[in-house]
């Protein structure tokens, strides 16, 4: 296991190097002079020159890249021009709502997705199977942000059951956090539950065709015992991977959901940073989410290797 872990960690280095390079290049994709774009039309020549020097943009590009690497390695993501503080500070301030949203949506996705998939797979071709899989198809097709708006209209505007927007910190009032999270988490998690349900179903079908299931049936075990004691656990092995991938996708989805529900997280941070042309913040959010994405995938692979020893020896 230790050898596998080391191997996987080493494989991350080139990926992260490419990620950092792409984030670095973002500034250079800006058409024209990035500094004058950033400072707007009112900036003087002197200001532009000073900012350019402060950002190191006056140096040759390979030097800039090396500088960027060394700054990232020191954990320095630069300075936000608009918020007037280091980007890392701004990220820390906005991380809580995004994390809470991502985890609650994951919870929703798993709670809906896993039982639906297992049920549909166990009773293939039944009315349950067809209903659940039609639901899953709709779950894949309905855009999450549109679902959010419909939820707001129905549950907040018409029925008045839940708040339409906003966020209360978990450390201030957990009950209020919960009330604020219900609609965002359900609308974000619903799409992903569909993916989990489809995979869980096909894993279940595959497991149910194995010889040991036939043996279990031949022993005279009931359908329930076969499904829940023998098939379920084995079908869950690949599903764990999907749950991990889901988590990574949810980080991206959270950005959009935060805009709909006015949640002050990383998503709102990046969108407002784009509108203010605060590029260091854009770079910071993209880099941090990509790093989180890569780490989650690593953890998922580790869990998978832990559950299924065959993976380690490949």
């Amino acid at each position, binding site marked *: 296991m230790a050898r596998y872990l080391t191997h996987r960690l080493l494989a991350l280095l080139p990926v992260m190097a490419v990620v950092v390079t792409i984030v670095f290049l973002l500034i250079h994709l800006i058409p024209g002079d990035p500094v004058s774009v950033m400072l707007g039309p009112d900036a003087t020549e002197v200001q532009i020159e000073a900012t350019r020097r402060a950002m190191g943009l006056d140096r040759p590009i390979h030097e800039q890249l090396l500088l960027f690497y060394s700054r990232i390695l020191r954990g320095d993501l630069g300075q936000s021009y608009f918020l007037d503080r280091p980007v890392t500070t701004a990220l820390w301030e906005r991380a809580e709502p995004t994390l809470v949203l991502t985890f609650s949506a994951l919870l929703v996705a798993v709670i809906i997705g896993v039982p639906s998939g297992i049920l549909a797979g166990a009773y293939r071709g039944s009315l349950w199977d067809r209903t659940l899989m039609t639901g899953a198809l709709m779950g894949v097709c309905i855009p999450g942000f549109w679902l959010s708006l419909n939820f707001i209209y129905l549950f907040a505007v018409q029925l008045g059951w839940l708040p339409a927007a906003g966020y209360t910190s978990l450390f201030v009032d957990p009950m209020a956090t919960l009330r604020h999270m219900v609609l965002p988490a359900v609308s974000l998690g619903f799409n992903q539950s569909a993916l989990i349900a489809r995979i869980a179903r096909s894993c279940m079908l595959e497991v149910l065709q194995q010889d040991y299931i036939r043996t279990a049936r031949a022993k005279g075990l009931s359908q329930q015992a076969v499904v829940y004691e023998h098939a379920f656990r084995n079908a869950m092995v690949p599903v764990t991977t999907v749950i991990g991938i889901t988590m990574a996708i949810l980080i*991206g989805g959270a950005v959009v959901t935060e805009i709909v529900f006015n949640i002050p997280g990383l998503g709102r941070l990046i*969108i407002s940073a784009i509108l203010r042309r605060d590029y260091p913040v854009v770079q910071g959010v993209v880099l941090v989410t990509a790093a989180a994405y890569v780490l989650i995938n690593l953890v998922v692979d580790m869990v998978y290797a832990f559950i299924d020893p065959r993976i380690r020896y490949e």
Partner: protein
Amino acid sequence: MSDMMQERSQNQPPDATAATARNRRPRWMRRLLRHPNVVFGSLIFLGLLLVALFADTLSTHKPTRLFPANRLTAPSVQNYLGTDEFGRDVYSLVLHGSRVSLIVGGVTMLLTSLGGVVIGLAAGYSRRLDPVIMRFMDGLMAFPAILLAIALMAARGPGVWNVIVALSIVYMPRTAMLIRSTVLSLRELDYVQAARALGRRDLTLAYRHILPNCMGPLLVQGTFIFAYAVLAEAILGFLGVGVPPYVPSWGNVIASGKNTIREAYWVSFFPGAALTLAGLSLNLLGDGLRDTLDPRLRVQ
């Protein structure tokens, strides 16, 4: 009437020829036409395509015309799907929005397929290029797709072409990896080895023997990328970083409906329903194509 009958009988081949024509159809096509998902998905998609083509004729109003006195009116005979906060006709906006969606989806599909084939073939063929290309693709895949698209749009600014380029960069690695893995498994097969032993050059080998066998997976992947791109375009528009706000697109209209959701549900509801329909048609088509063309990927 009789003219029509005559014409039909002239166009209609005798039964025997019809039967052979049917038999001459390749087996995969017959299988496709029997698959309900494919038929249903293509019909919806065809409908959308017609709407996009004839949006000007079908519209009752000019979609970009602002009419503030008529803002936020509910669906009625004058405005089938109501009006938005600027008094624009939602029905005409939805019809015209399909154009942006289909153009972005279609061109992104073409660009990712083209780029994916070139990169995938290069990686699958050249043992020297492979690690470099694949590390770069891994790096691109390490970003959450929508975030990378947002970041690219942030740098390049709003615009239809910028959306297409951003989404093509985001989704290209998936196609490239698919083609690479197909090439890797194909190039060890006997018939490819035989062609190589006959002295065929690498490029001929790739074009004549490998590429045709990649078409099935490529088409399936392309359909799903079409679906992702339509959705991603709407998301970018909704966030205000996609096509410019004055261009009628589903995402832009939904964004304007978000501001007025308390008074007027219809502004965001109908473009969203159109988006869902487009997603449904492409997903049905993709699932069906996968079942018929690429049995390896079949979900039972």
